[in-house]
């Protein structure tokens, strides 16, 4: 009884202090259990048919809701990095993210139908499979696979930190389970490591259990939770601040006029410009082409059931994006007045902190806070699970089965897929023992890098008969190499001080060089396109029969005698 009494007293104290309580962690536990249950259901559903097609492509059965809401456009960045930018720089971040207004139509409308068709014609299960079969080149498939592994590993490692941070904030904040006290530099942060362990076990567990379908179904469930969580938080913050206009005026008095205008508020007050017009222009390339060239997105299109599915997904995702991003901007603008004093290293935590702060006075407030925290937690889990599937498929299908053991049995493939997911999860945990910094910067690097590598080659694959293997390889390496070079130059310059640092973009050390004030992706796409065209035209044309099979209508069936 004394123990229960103590816990109740601790709960009352937490509620008064505005820190997470047992209700918060209970809501997240329920969410985790629901995700595991979905993994079990997915495991049962994929039992029929081929293991590879079921585990890595869901037997090409995705419907419109699943395709639209699981296109992995939301990630840890959506609920951690992006809110942090709004909190720090103000309204100009709306322009930074504005290209999401066209991301659904570009993501599905440019390549959707054609990739879905080509993947069926060639029997491709993965993106590297598709390159290999379309051009009849194992080397091209291997190159695509290695590039995907490189970029996705960066992105996934960053997501694990976000998952651990949400779990950390959901721990009860007082009494014997007091995990959330601030930890001094160099001290062991046990709340963070507990969060990291629980997050990893959950997400690797359900993904290994149900593969692609588990990733998609949990993604769908989590997308609904994100929608509910964001709208609930919007209502709560508006109730606290009165109106958005009032919040904006108050925030500008706390910060400066830059909070309401471009190029954004500069917390360093050293003349740094977060979003000059050149970068605003660049981000209409960054998000659009990151969506278009994302391997996780491409593979979901390959899994779509029909063209009707793709059509409906366009307007479903279009509406969904508006209801996520515009409210999130308003929430964080208001958040600046509710929690005005977050230090620079803590601004990633604005959403979890707002969820807890705005629900403390409500009945069952801590449970409600947990439901709201399920939104960022779900976004991170959804991203990690889909990336785990893509990385595992790359290693198992495109490396192990193609090159190491072509005669592998379905049981060997199943065992290897599970083992790869566990090993990748462990590597991500090891990489996060010292939590990665610059979450949003890593998301942008990974997105622009894979966009620069895959966008032009995917367009060549889908629409250009004359594209050749050397041309596609040149396009891949020229695009990816341009982005990589700009990052190496930018980061090295930050460390070694070769020339005056460009004072634009994210306030982080993980900062590319911006040639001409534009994001490296803008240049990379142009260079990738030029390399692809020039090298293709200067090399031997592709096999006419192979091209005809993939670009021409099937010849009419010969008439049969009707006897």
């Amino acid at each position, binding site marked *: 009884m004394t123990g229960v009494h103590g816990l109740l007293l601790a709960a009352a104290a937490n509620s008064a202090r505005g820190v997470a309580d047992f209700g918060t962690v209970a809501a997240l536990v329920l969410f985790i259990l629901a995700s595991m249950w979905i993994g079990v259901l997915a495991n049962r559903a994929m039992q029929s048919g081929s293991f590879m097609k079921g585990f890595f492509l869901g037997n090409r059965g995705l419907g419109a809701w699943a395709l639209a809401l699981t296109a992995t456009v939301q990630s840890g960045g959506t609920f951690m990095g992006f809110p942090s930018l709004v909190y720090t720089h103000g309204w100009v971040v709306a322009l930074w993210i504005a290209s999401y207004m066209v991301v659904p139509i570009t993501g599905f409308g*440019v390549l959707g139908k054609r990739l879905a068709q080509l993947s069926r014609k060639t029997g491709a299960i993965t993106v590297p499979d598709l390159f290999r079969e379309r051009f009849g080149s194992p080397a091209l498939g291997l190159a695509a696979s290695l590039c995907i592994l490189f970029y996705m590993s960066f992105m996934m490692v960053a997501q694990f930190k976000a998952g651990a941070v949400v779990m950390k904030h959901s721990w009860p904040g007082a009494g014997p389970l007091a995990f959330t006290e601030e930890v001094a530099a160099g001290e062991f942060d046990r709340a963070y490591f507990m969060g990291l362990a629980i997050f990893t076990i959950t997400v690797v567990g359900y993904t290994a259990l149900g593969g692609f379908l588990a990733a998609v179904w949990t993604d769908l469930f989590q997308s609904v939770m994100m929608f509910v969580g964001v709208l609930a938080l919007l209502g709560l913050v508006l109730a606290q601040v009165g109106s958005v206009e009032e919040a904006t005026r108050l925030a500008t008095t706390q910060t400066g006029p830059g909070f309401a205008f471009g190029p954004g508020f500069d917390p360093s007050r050293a003349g740094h410009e977060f979003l000059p*017009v050149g970068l605003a222009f660049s981000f209409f390339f960054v998000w*659009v082409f990151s969506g278009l060239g994302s391997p996780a997105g491409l593979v979901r299109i390959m899994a779509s059931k029909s063209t009707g599915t793709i059509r409906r997904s366009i*307007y479903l995702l279009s509406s969904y994006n508006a209801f996520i991003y515009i409210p999130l901007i*308003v929430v964080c603008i208001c958040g600046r007045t509710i929690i005005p004093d977050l230090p620079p290293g803590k601004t990633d935590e604005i959403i979890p902190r707002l969820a807890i702060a705005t629900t403390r006075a409500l009945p069952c407030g801590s449970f409600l806070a947990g439901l709201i925290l399920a939104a960022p937690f779900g976004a991170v889990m959804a991203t990690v699970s889909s990336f785990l599937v893509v990385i595992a498929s790359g290693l198992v299908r495109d490396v192990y089965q193609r090159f190491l053991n072509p005669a592998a049995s379905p049981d060997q493939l199943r065992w290897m897929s599970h083992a790869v997911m566990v090993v990748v999860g462990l590597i991500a945990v090891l990489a996060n023992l010292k939590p990665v910094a610059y979450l949003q910067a890593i998301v942008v690097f990974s997105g622009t890098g894979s966009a620069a590598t895959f966008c032009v080659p995917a367009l060549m694959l889908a629409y250009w008969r004359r594209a050749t293997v050397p041309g596609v390889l040149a396009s891949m390496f020229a695009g990816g190499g341009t982005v990589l070079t700009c990052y190496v130059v930018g980061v090295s310059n930050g460390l070694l001080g070769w020339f005056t640092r460009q004072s634009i973009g994210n306030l982080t050390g993980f900062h590319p060089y911006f040639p001409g004030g534009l994001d490296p992706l803008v240049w990379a796409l142009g260079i990738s396109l030029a390399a692809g065209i020039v090298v293709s035209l200067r090399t031997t044309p592709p096999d006419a029969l192979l091209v005809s099979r993939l*670009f021409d209508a099937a010849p009419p069936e010969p008439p049969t005698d009707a006897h």
Partner: protein
Amino acid sequence: MMSHYESPPSAGTAPLSEDPLLRSARREALVVGVTWVCAMSWSVGYCAWFGYGRSIDGLTFVWGIPDWVFWGIVAPWLACIAFSFFFGARFMGDDDLGRDDGANDEPSGAGA
């Protein structure tokens, strides 16, 4: 550059016509490209003109949102949603994706 019409798949057969799905996909991709350029030009142009280098005194609000954000971002976003409904429900055609060749536990042969 060799056209596919110049290289019939086998001697003695008529040239093949282009896959109808490829034709419709290309047409739709072009429309999407134009939409992207229009959205980018409007948003970046409007915001650069009205959202940079202004004084806080002249700032007005529409539905609580700064005027330049509303007209430069929120309004075109709503227009894009409306266009997406038109594009997905009316403009984009339905095509047969074909049957699923291969895709089993064996790695399939190279495109033949």
